[in-house]
């Protein structure tokens, strides 16, 4: 309350004041920079929680035979790993970036709805306390996969309602975050910044925010129906009562596919910011990038059933979803070509953000290729639910989304903290991550093609060799991330003073670089002019 009053007073009198003292600064935060920091630190924590679960999975899969955990606990780990990484690590990290960067990039003093911003963040710790708390209730954590397919998910124990309510809370948080992004971008751009002059990161987030608002309520509806099936005698998804278990999959993936793009469109935006900076050349085809992003977003609503080709769809349905899915390759290809054309005839230097962006370019494209293969329905009948799929979505999510987040952190960290970080360690972090991520995920293509199903705690001995390699990669990748934390913490605590432009490349362009490093607690109180 006191803080709200302060903020109000500051607004009236235009006197510069710093952050509140103590824990109150964070609990009652309404400053977009503080909330952005909270989001990103929270996501970093969740990245390690989810990562630890991944290591439990890979440790069990190191050798054939059951050595460490019960199969039920293994299933809990796969389920929780996915939920935590998607809703706890990747999504909040992007929302945190949006909070920090959108006001700076559009020249706004703050997000449009600061109190809702506080609320949308502080829901998350409660949601994840509840979700992770399921590990300690009778029956253990949810073990039916993050996709929560009934009837299997109905076999969840006491964790069931906790899972549903945690998902509801995450959804509410995402929707509020998305509303805030849209309202800020639509109403608070600096004078002169027309839509097609916005930085590309802002564009990708605007489109992402619309996706979030469109699909999170669908997920909420789906899980609510699971809940009423479980406790209130409805039979939406129960065949015995005239319901339809496949209907859940349709509803879920109508959320789930746009969700995939929610996790990758802002990554496209980040990479589109970084590559021009370090190529010392403007982004190639800005307009095409915007239209490609919008096309991908549109297509994401009409391809959902490619996640469920094996449920037994009519031939026409399979054809439609195959063709629509293949079509996504076109705008995605445009993006990859445009990034390449941005580098072409540039003057490229290889600072850590650029290294991660280049790695993104190569490895995300590999994920795109396997995605194209998966779109071919007859081939998908072989690939479906094997490690080939696991390899595919980890390639687009880890060296895709997560690498873009690391690139963003290394790109803007000096702006946020006012300090340069340790370049040597950051580069070491890059090389370790890039090498191990491939050791970890590339062999999973082979495992899937050779016939290893996903979500199994034990496997036939013919899969032993590549699994061992993959597990070695997993531990290497996991441990390398400790270096990331060290670089960030050291950079927050001190280091060489960063200049306003940070990068000496002549670029970077964008309003955030006109501010000091770190920017004042309240920036752009008078809107800048954009020509």
């Amino acid at each position, binding site marked *: 309350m006191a803080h709200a009053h302060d903020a109000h007073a500051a607004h009236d009198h235009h006197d510069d004041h710093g952050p509140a003292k103590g824990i109150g600064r964070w609990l009652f935060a309404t400053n977009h920079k503080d909330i952005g920091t909270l989001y990103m630190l929270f996501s970093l924590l969740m990245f390690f929680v989810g990562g630890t679960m991944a290591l439990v999975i890979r440790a069990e899969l190191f050798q054939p035979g059951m050595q460490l955990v019960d199969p039920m606990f293994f299933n809990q780990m796969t389920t929780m790993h996915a939920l935590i990484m998607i809703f706890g690590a990747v999504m909040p990290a992007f929302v945190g970036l949006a909070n920090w960067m959108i006001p700076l990039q559009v020249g706004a003093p703050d997000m449009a709805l600061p109190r809702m911003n506080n609320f949308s963040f502080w829901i998350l710790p409660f949601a994840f306390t509840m979700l992770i708390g399921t590990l300690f209730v009778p029956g253990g954590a949810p073990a039916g996969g993050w996709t929560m397919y009934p009837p*299997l998910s109905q076999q969840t124990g006491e964790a069931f309602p906790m899972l549903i309510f945690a998902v509801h809370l995450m959804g509410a948080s995402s929707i509020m975050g998305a509303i805030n992004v849209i309202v800020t971008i639509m109403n608070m751009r600096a004078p002169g910044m027309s839509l097609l002059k916005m930085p590309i990161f802002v564009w990708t987030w605007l489109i992402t925010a619309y996706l979030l608002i469109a699909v999170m309520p669908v997920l909420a509806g789906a899980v609510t129906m699971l809940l009423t099936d479980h406790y209130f005698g409805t039979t939406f998804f129960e*065949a015995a009562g005239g319901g339809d278990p*496949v209907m859940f999959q349709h509803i879920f993936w109508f959320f789930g596919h746009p969700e995939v793009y929610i996790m990758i469109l802002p990554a496209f935006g980040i990479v589109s910011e970084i590559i021009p900076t370090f190529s010392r050349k403007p982004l190639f085809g800005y307009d095409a990038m915007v239209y490609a992003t919008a096309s991908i977003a549109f297509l994401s609503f009409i391809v959902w059933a490619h996640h469920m080709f094996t449920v037994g769809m009519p031939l026409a349905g399979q054809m439609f979803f195959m063709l629509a899915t293949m079509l996504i390759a076109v705008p995605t290809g445009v993006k990859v070509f445009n990034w390449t054309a941005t580098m072409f005839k540039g003057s490229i230097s290889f600072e850590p953000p650029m290294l991660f962006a280049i790695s993104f370019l190569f490895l995300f494209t590999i994920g795109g290729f396997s995605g194209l293969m998966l779109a071919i329905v007859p081939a998908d*009948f*072989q690939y479906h639910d094997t490690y080939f799929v696991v390899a595919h979505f980890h390639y687009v999510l880890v060296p895709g989304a997560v690498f873009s987040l690391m690139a963003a952190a290394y790109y803007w960290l000096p702006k946020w903290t006012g300090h340069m970080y340790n370049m040597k360690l950051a580069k070491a972090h890059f090389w370790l991550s890039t090498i191990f991520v491939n050791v970890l995920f590339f062999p999973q293509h082979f495992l899937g093609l050779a016939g290893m199903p996903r979500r199994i705690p034990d496997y*036939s001995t013919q899969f032993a060799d590549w699994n061992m390699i993959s597990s070695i990669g997993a531990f290497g990748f996991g441990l390398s991330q400790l270096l990331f934390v060290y670089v960030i913490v050291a950079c927050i605590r001190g280091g060489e003073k960063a200049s306003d432009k940070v990068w000496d490349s002549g670029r970077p362009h964008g309003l955030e670089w006109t501010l000091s490093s770190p920017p004042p607690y309240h920036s752009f109180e008078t809107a800048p002019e954009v020509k």
Partner: protein
Amino acid sequence: MKIVKYAAAGSLAAAALLPTGAALAAWEINMPVGVTELSRDIHGLHMMIFWICVLIAIAVFGMMIYSIVKFRHSQGAVPATFDHSTKAEIVWTIIPVAILVGMAIPAAATLVKIEDTRDSTLTIKVTGYQWKWHYDYLDQKVSFFSTLSRDSDAARQTGSGIDPNSVENYLLSVDKPLVVPVGAKVRVLLTSNDVIHAWWVPAFGMKKDAIPGFVNELWFRADEPGTYRGQCAELCGRDHAFMPVVVEVKPQAEYDSWLAEQQGGAAPAAAQAQTVENAAPATAAAAE
């Protein structure tokens, strides 16, 4: 220590097995070709898309690597200032569309073939259970459960101390496999008694979900006698990894005598009685 020993043994075994292409497909990196027309078609499609992707990758990655090597700031590269080229952008929109159409046509043709379940000589109803399969030869009045073999089941218990390498076909063998005649078009009707499962034999190229309340169809015609192994491919709970699919493809005469044995013996009758009882809810649900 055990792990190190295993690693050494594993790589030795792999080295020994690789040239012979033995059943133990250690270090296997590609999809097996399979023994049915569909699986060969699918394998062909898979390889076609793979090589198209490789070609695109060579072009795109080549361009990226060229740019990274050639236009280095440290080598004094001077950046150009262009920021778009409508011509280039039209070209790299249209070419992918053409490639995609080229991929879609053979894929669609195969898909039509896959969906054609007419004129089958044998129909088998497969019902998924947590965690075993039930096979029902609808017209031959033979039915039985198929569960993970005992030696695999003993070895897979947590901390069993049994080395999986000492178990033949670890996790891929059952007490009673499905038996079908070679060269016959077998139609499989899939459903489930509890949660969703998926029936998959990689060598047949087909996988389909077994869903309570639904009857899904797939077909295969195996060209060579042999034993083909697969697994449940849809997460179905605790023992999802432990309900393999094993199909024995026999010459017609052997199949006929196997069938006569199943129909005549006393044991199958008892099994059948139990079966009918268990399968009843699934049948009722499927009937809707």
